[in-house]
């Protein structure tokens, strides 16, 4: 878009938009179930993702119980333990985090924040959700299939994923998992096209790219990455299905399984790992970038200060997105690939730390000389910074090829990725829910319950994952059903395991408070009004709260300024909405 300087043109033409039939659904079904309203779809995505996430939470309890009290719970045998870790990992990464950030927050926030009436392809958007639901159902089907779900670990490395030594390898488990992923990717592509094209083509007048809130930047970049990275998982899944069902040898070398020669030969397990991590590493940032964007907006709004270094933040998001495609093999330092690759991938991996660090500095510098309101979203943002900095820094251990050698495949890795792409993004999700719930429902979430939820979750998760690094340092491998008698592990490590498990149970229980709060506040929460946080961005300027389908009533909003005009000197209030034109005066040129 090009801006024409003042004086060269007349008044802004009317932005009146024709009324669309779609915005007046005829029945309850088309309004709430087969809805084409991005906001309803967002809620559907979120509810489904959180529900399946709860399943994964319970699975994590079960596996923690086994680790703390091996042998005490008889129903957790080795088979089910591996099934639990596999399903926990896959659900959390793909079906919860990816779906919630892109399908949930993306659907709700993109159209509202860029001033669109809806996504550009509402029908495909609806379809995207239903396909996602089918993927989730296929996945859950694994629990009821003969042999149970797959226990191959969320990385699904062949050959073990399709052999009988692994639960579900020769039964339905692995088939259902691969099919579910394929269906998920198809559904995601329909949604992803929507998010990208809506940002490209659906922005309202005046909404230049550099006026977009960082939330939109984060989700947009993550979606572009997901569209390019998910095909790698798709190809890997299709090829593994061929190997498992039709007997091809894409990934299957000559194997003697339990004394018996198999028909396969010549295939390359490392090929799978390349494909998997070509998707898997961008996936980390697919989850992280929306969190980066959202947390920037939370900090800025609740510190009543513009985000520090907006341009640098945008560039950092784009650079991280691009770099994340050339670091994938840092998951494979000890995989047996050509060791010379280690030099390249260690270098690119550590370079990516620089734009990431800049983002952290800018969040903290936004607090500097701010007017910090310690609201729940702000608390979660602060907690995010703590966990993200912690997890990001341990990433420097694992990214630096030679330091990774002793640490890979130990609990250190588990602690690292839970901190950086488990806890940190989930804290942002909570912060974002406390922040936008008033817009979605028109009511505030209960503050007291929120504080209990916040402190238990933040301190509890830190207490789970910080000490866990030291188990890894000690040498405790990950994915162990039971450690048994191991000479180098002191008995005190078992005490630590018990402590971690207790904390995990507590943190899990705290989430029930959160769920209760979500439901209770829906009916009893304080009325929020249209803009309870006194925020500048477009979603808080809708004529109705919650916004109706079509978002903006008769006229689309027109954007006159960037998204971060907080505490502008000389302004009557400490925020100026994006829809408010400049009043001729040029107070701010003097400052900058």
């Amino acid at each position, binding site marked *: 878009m090009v801006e024409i300087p003042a004086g060269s043109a007349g008044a*802004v033409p009317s932005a009146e938009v024709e009324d669309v039939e779609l915005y007046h659904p005829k029945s309850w079904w088309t309004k709430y179930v087969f809805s084409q309203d991005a906001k309803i779809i967002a809620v559907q995505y979120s509810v489904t993702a959180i529900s399946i996430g709860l399943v994964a939470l319970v699975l994590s309890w079960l596996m923690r119980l086994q680790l703390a009290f091996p042998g005490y719970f008889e129903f957790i045998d080795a088979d089910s333990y591996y099934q639990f870790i596999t399903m926990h990992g896959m659900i959390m990464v793909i079906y919860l985090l990816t779906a919630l950030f892109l399908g949930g927050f993306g659907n709700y926030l993109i159209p509202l924040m860029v001033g669109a009436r809806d996504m550009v392809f509402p029908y495909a958007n609806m379809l995207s959700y239903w396909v996602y639901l089918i993927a989730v159902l296929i996945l859950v089907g694994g629990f009821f299939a003969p042999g149970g779900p797959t226990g191959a670990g969320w990385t699904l490395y062949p050959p073990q994923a399709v052999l009988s030594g692994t639960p579900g390898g020769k039964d339905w488990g692995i088939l259902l998992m691969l099919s579910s992923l394929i269906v998920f990717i198809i559904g995601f592509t329909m949604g992803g096209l929507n998010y990208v094209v809506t940002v490209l083509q659906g922005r309202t007048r005046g909404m230049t790219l550099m006026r977009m809130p960082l939330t939109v930047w984060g989700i947009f970049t993550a979606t572009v990455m997901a569209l390019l990275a998910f095909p790698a998982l798709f190809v890997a899944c299709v090829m593994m299905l061929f190997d498992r069902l*039709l007997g091809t040898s894409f990934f299957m070398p000559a194997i003697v399984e339990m004394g018996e020669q198999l028909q396969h030969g010549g295939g390359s397990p490392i090929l799978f790992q390349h494909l998997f991590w070509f998707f898997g590493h961008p996936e980390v940032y697919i989850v992280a970038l929306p969190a980066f964007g959202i947390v920037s907006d939370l900090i800025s709004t609740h510190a009543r200060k513009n985000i520090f270094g907006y341009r640098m933040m945008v560039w950092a998001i784009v650079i991280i997105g691009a770099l994340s495609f050339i670091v994938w093999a840092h998951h494979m330092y000890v995989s047996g690939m050509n060791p010379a690759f280690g030099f390249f991938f260690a270098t690119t991996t550590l370079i990516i730390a620089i734009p990431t660090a800049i983002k952290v500095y800018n969040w903290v510098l936004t607090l500097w000389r701010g007017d910090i309101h310690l609201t729940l979203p702000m608390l979660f943002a602060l907690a995010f910074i703590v966990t993200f900095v912690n997890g990001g820094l341990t990433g420097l251990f694992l990214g630096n090829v030679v330091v990774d050698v002793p640490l890979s495949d130990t609990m250190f890795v588990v602690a690292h990725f839970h901190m950086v792409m488990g806890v940190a993004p989930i804290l942002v999700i909570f912060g974002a829910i406390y922040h936008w719930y008033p817009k979605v429902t028109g009511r505030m979430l209960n503050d007291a319950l929120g504080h209990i939820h916040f402190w238990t979750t933040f301190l509890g998760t830190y207490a789970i994952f910080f000490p866990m690094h030291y188990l890894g340092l000690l040498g405790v491998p990950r994915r162990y059903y039971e450690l048994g008698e191991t000479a180098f592990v002191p008995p005190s490590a078992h005490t630590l395991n018990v402590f971690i498990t207790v904390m995990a149970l507590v943190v899990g229980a705290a989430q029930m408070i959160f769920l209760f709060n979500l439901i209770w506040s829906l009916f009893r929460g304080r009325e929020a009004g249209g803009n309870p946080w006194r925020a500048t961005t477009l979603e808080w300027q809708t004529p109705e709260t919650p916004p109706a389908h079509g978002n903006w009533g008769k006229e689309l909003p027109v*954007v006159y300024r960037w998204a971060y005009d907080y505490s502008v000197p000389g302004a009557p209030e400490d925020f100026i909405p994006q829809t408010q034109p400049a009043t001729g005066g040029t107070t701010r040129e003097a400052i900058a």
Partner: protein
Amino acid sequence: MNVTLFFLTAVGAVIAWWMAGQRLTSKPWLEASPAQTTIAGRKDPPAPAVKIGLYVFLGVVGALFSLSISAYFMRMESADWWGMPLPRLLWVNTALLASGSVALQWAKREVRHGRMEALRLALVAGFILGALFLAGQIEAWRQLSAAGYLLTDNPANSFFYMLTGLHGLHILGGLVVVGRTTVRAFAADAPSARLRLSAGLCTVYFHFMLAVWLILFALFAGWANDFVDLCRQLLS
């Protein structure tokens, strides 16, 4: 993964080119505009969302095939790889798909001039040629299986069946859309904007799938390897 990285570099170049026009170095906080400004928008009318959507989708499909081709090259390095002979029929199929592409290009021209009769003919021709291509591919599969080149015998065979299958599914999807456009063309007396758009998009999609097929064909015929070898020699 070289093929994939090459593809991603191309995609990255397009994104960089687009971003270069978005004033990413501007200082948005200095640019609040007064109400009296026309926030004019774009110099040209915005491209229809579907069109951009299609290009983004082609990016996804491109990633899918470039990753498959990367996997093909990586798997090829192992000792158990024997190339398979290609049935002559594939040449016919290539010709069919290419003429389908030409027919759709013709349809695109006719719809611009508003000649409905010719448009319908062109669309039907495109549809039939595409369908014949698919039938031809299936026949090629049958010939190969009959000649003893089964899916599981060799990775080269496995890749052939998988990649042609994947490509065929994309053609099938394209045919559904062409079919719908054809039906619409028969129902309408004059070309609507929507029909014009559909015809244009079908053409783009089929050209793209033709390009993918030509690359796959070159790959199966072994020319791609010669090309890669040539590149390596030039580099070293």
